[in-house]
């Protein structure tokens, strides 16, 4: 299908970091079923580094691919860097998304930020 780039299809077919982290340090869930997309991110953080990240997504092909790519982009990175992840970076790493699917990359950005905010709330730490 030429609807998506090869990269999107590759991440959609073989999503990275799928699943749940039972003892996560931060969890973020964004979107709603009404609009047809929900993303949930689980973070394991040690020494301000994202040691592990997993996701669960209800949504279209680009939502799943965006989740997968976003987890790849932040895994092993300092939390401060993860906090700066933009939807544009996610979309670019996927070799682009159709215009009306850009909101999927926005959701991925928001899901990660939401999980990091949860981590801040739990630990009282401020990510700089």
């Amino acid at each position, binding site marked *: 299908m030429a609807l998506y780039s090869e990269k999107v299809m590759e991440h*959609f077919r073989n999503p990275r970091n799928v699943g749940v982290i039972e003892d996560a340090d931060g969890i973020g869930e964004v979107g709603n079923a009404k609009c047809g997309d929900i993303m949930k991110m689980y973070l394991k953080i040690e020494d301000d580094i994202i040691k592990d990240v997993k996701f669960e997504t209800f949504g279209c092909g680009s939502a799943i691919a965006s989740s997968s790519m976003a987890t790849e982009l932040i895994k092993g990175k300092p939390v401060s860097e993860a906090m700066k992840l933009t939807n544009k970076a996610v979309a670019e790493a996927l070799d682009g998304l159709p215009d009306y699917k850009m909101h999927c990359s926005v959701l991925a950005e928001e899901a990660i930020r939401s999980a990091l905010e949860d981590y801040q709330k739990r630990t009282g730490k401020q990510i700089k």
Partner: protein
Amino acid sequence: MIYVDNAATTKMSKTAIHTMTAMMEDTWGNPSSLYSIGQRAKEVLEKARADVASVIGAEPREITFTSGGSEADNQAILTAALLGEKSGKKHIVSSAFEHHAVLHTLNKLEKMGYEITLLDVHENGMIIPSELEAAIREDTCLVTIMTANNEIGTIQPIRELGAICRSRKVLFHTDAVQAVGHIPLNVIEDNIDLLSASAHKFHGPKGVGFLYARKGIRLTNLIEGGAQERGKRAGTENVPGIVSMAEALKEANAGMEKNAEHLVKMRDRLIAGLKEIPHSALNGDAEHRLPGNVNFCFEGIEGESLLLLLDDKGIQASSGSACTSGSLDPSHVLLAIGRVHDVAHGSLRLSIGEDITEADVDYLIKSVKEVVEYLRGFSPIWRDLMAGKKQFIL
């Protein structure tokens, strides 16, 4: 490859293709020309008109060839609206799950001062005739209800609805795009005044259709120009397409009973198999249903990802999910039968074709089961449902 999107379009039949190429090779004249190759084109054009008319029980002069179902819908509705206006009648009754060719035309008329009543199609996707009876007013000029729904395949009691319109002296139009060539239709017995059809839904070519308008109903032009189609649809006729459509229709009509018998068997096997998937539901009435239509909702998953993964397994299908439409709202048809957004996003339409085998059906069931299970495996909604944090809808 298993193509199960015949409600979107069908593959042209061999006869339709051969007819079309033969017309292009040999009968390419302009039917309006008076020399022999023009007149030969005129002859085949009029023969096609007679053939199409006879399949639906109409007279040749009651058939106007169009570019397809949408144009026919537009012209039928506009015609009835303008006829109504002449006698001060500006109320139209339709249903909530019509095709957009009908609904968007009605929206346009609403902006022009017409009043539109959309009948409820209920949970099973069926119109209740008494509700039509009650909706018709003194100033109603048109009732337009589709014969069979394009998404969930429900077949309306057209004859009964037509009879109500007759008795109340209101024009009755039906968008029969999904029905013509698939289920028996007769404009006289079924009390139809205006009917739209499209060739590519019955193995004919794309870009061709027809509008039946009962004798005495003066059509309003959408396209002005030459005197083609009795002056009601200008533009040099698409002779190859029209003749090919007529051949495809005759073929579909001749094989209708046999095809339907096979399709119903395959359809019901498919429905039974998919019903085994937990928290799923068939959309639309199980009995009053097109022979080739299967439409399900699966809770906890989204339709587009389902379609993409089925495509990887060689299965071509469609969904009423928002993501397949480019908007945030799922199919208006699924919403009209009361499916909530969460569930409507997880819909799958399998519109099977005559050549489907039992082995194909079993492969479809197996594949859909696998993909639904896989997607549920990492769906946060499914997790919440299973954990009891959310209530199952289906």
